[in-house]
């Protein structure tokens, strides 16, 4: 009973999450709820396709010249579902067809900046916009750009969005098209800096929008700031008295980072690096935890996005490298007491590689852990759709729920641990790197 009383909040959130995801999944697939099973069976699948399709006269499932409509019914794919849900988006899906519009800040070289909000795309179903604005369209909640310069200005109605798999330079790529007036217009995804390795690259536009991830970051930072401000105020005010309230919750974290992370790893000069370590720790922890909440305002996979971990790891890299002392460079570049041949050909190259590998492992570890956690939870929730044959079998769905709820619950509890653990590990390793860099030579 004590267990239940202590962890009721975890139980409630975990339980809610399963249903929230389940609901989310249902909405996205446009599948009937299990309770409406008979109803759904009575109607042909085409009756459930979107209004856009019907208006454009493209019955779902029909092959347009540029591939399949994005609204076409395809078998449920748990992997695609998970990958879609962990991605960043330009609008926040609240419930059903309701999306929270977010500011769009877009830049296309040669066409200048564009400031608007996602609501101007008139997105309803699946986050697909009804219109193109100055060449930009909203597909599945993400902004894309029509390559055809004829649509670079003004508002144009989009009939449908399609996708087509092709092979470019031996790599499988999925191309997206906007169907306008029966014509297929190739769409560009936003620019990414993966150098084409991951199927992205520099395209015709840059997206600096306040996306779901940016919104979550702002919200988390604001909450953290307010919490810490109140703690700081009461800490200053209650001087000479016992700490109370939030102070008792926050201060142990502070002393933990100070006594277990900063002091032992950095040494006597630890105080200078405390603000960075604390900021990194609480930033990551806050985002990890808010990402665990499966519905608005949580659910965004922020720390599981490599862009965020890159920035944090880069800051650790910059701080440790720029505060590095002579002792560090000497031991990295020209290790004393080792033959010159060994140094030139083995040790120094490895050490230099190590300087860059350290932040790389840092960014990869956090990214991989959080993304993996989200994928596993989403996969467990997907069991409901797999067992229920994507909403066609009520009994299957029930079996799926029975299998999914405890598994998701277990995973969510584990992810709660991972949220703390990864924030701690990132901070710990940052402190270690800084500590190694500023280490003073030992006097023998």
């Amino acid at each position, binding site marked *: 009973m004590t267990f239940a009383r202590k962890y009721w909040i975890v139980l409630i959130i975990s339980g809610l999450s399963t249903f929230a995801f389940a609901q989310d999944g249902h909405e996205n697939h446009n599948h009937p709820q299990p309770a409406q099973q008979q109803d759904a069976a009575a109607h042909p699948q085409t009756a459930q396709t979107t209004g856009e399709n019907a208006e454009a006269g493209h019955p779902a499932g029909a092959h347009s010249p540029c591939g399949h409509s994005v609204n076409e019914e395809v078998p449920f794919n748990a*992997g695609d579902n998970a990958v879609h849900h962990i991605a960043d988006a330009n609008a926040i899906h609240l419930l059903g067809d309701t999306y929270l519009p977010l500011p769009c800040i877009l830049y296309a070289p040669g066409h200048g900046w564009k400031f608007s909000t996602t609501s101007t795309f008139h997105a309803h179903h699946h986050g697909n916009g009804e219109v193109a604005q100055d060449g930009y369209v909203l597909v599945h909640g993400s902004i894309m750009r029509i390559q055809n310069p004829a649509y670079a200005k003004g508002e144009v109605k989009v009939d449908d969005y399609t*996708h087509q798999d092709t092979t470019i330079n031996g790599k499988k790529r999925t191309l997206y098209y906007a169907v306008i007036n029966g014509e297929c217009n190739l769409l560009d995804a936003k620019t990414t800096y*993966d150098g084409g390795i991951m199927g992205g690259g520099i395209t015709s536009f840059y997206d600096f929008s306040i996306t779901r991830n940016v919104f979550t970051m702002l919200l988390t930072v604001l909450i*953290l*700031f307010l919490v810490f401000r109140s703690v700081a105020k009461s800490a*200053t005010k209650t001087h000479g008295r016992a700490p109370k309230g939030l102070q008792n919750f926050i201060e142990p974290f502070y002393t933990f980072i100070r006594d277990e992370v900063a002091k032992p790893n950095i040494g006597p000069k630890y105080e200078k690096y405390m*603000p960075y370590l604390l900021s990194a720790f609480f930033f990551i922890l806050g985002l990890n935890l808010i990402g665990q909440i499966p519905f608005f305002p949580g659910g965004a996979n922020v720390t599981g996005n490599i862009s965020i971990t*890159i920035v944090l790891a880069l800051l650790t890299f910059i701080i440790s490298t720029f505060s590095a002392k002579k002792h560090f460079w000497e031991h990295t570049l020209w290790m004393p007491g080792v033959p010159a041949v060994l140094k030139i050909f083995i040790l120094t190259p490895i050490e230099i590689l190590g300087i860059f590998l350290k932040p790389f492992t840092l960014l990869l570890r956090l990214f991989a852990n959080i993304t993996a956690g989200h994928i596993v939870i989403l996969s467990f929730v997907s069991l409901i759709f797999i067992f229920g044959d994507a909403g066609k079998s009520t009994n299957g769905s029930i079996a799926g729920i029975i299998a999914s709820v405890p598994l998701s619950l277990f995973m969510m509890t584990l992810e709660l641990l991972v949220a703390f653990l990864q924030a701690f590990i990132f901070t710990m390793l940052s402190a270690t790197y800084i500590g190694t860099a500023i280490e003073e030579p030992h006097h023998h």
Partner: protein
Amino acid sequence: MLFLADFSVIKPEPGLLFWTTVIFLIFWYMMSRFAFKPIGEALKKREQDIQEALDEAKKAREEMAHLEAKNEQLLAEAREERAQMLKEAKDAKEQIIAEAKERANAEYKRKVESALHDIENHKNAAMVELKNKSGQLAIEIAEKILRKELSNKAEQEAYAKSLSDSIQLN
């Protein structure tokens, strides 16, 4: 429908990189300035206070122990003094008793002596009186005898003669 099966989280995006940098730098500055600094200072101050309080408590305990030892010493001294005083009192008492006895003895002796002296005096007086009385009695008896014997002439002469003889003899 189809999901955008694009593993986009692994692609660094300029927008996210930009916003993360901006947000984190602002967060870092604001937190260190308005949260971590005061919290750290308050914690340090509190730790110092606690350390000081502990030190003071230790000091007070030590002082207490010191005081207790001192009390113990004082008590011992007092006890010794009392014993000393008792001993002195006892000595004084004995001395007084001894003196008193001595004086009593002397008085007694003096009284006895004076009594003996009185007795001697009285005895002497009594002897004198007795001598006087017995002399008187002897004279009276002699007178009576003489009166009776000297009633005839012959005897008177005889007696006078004997007396004169005895006086002559003396």
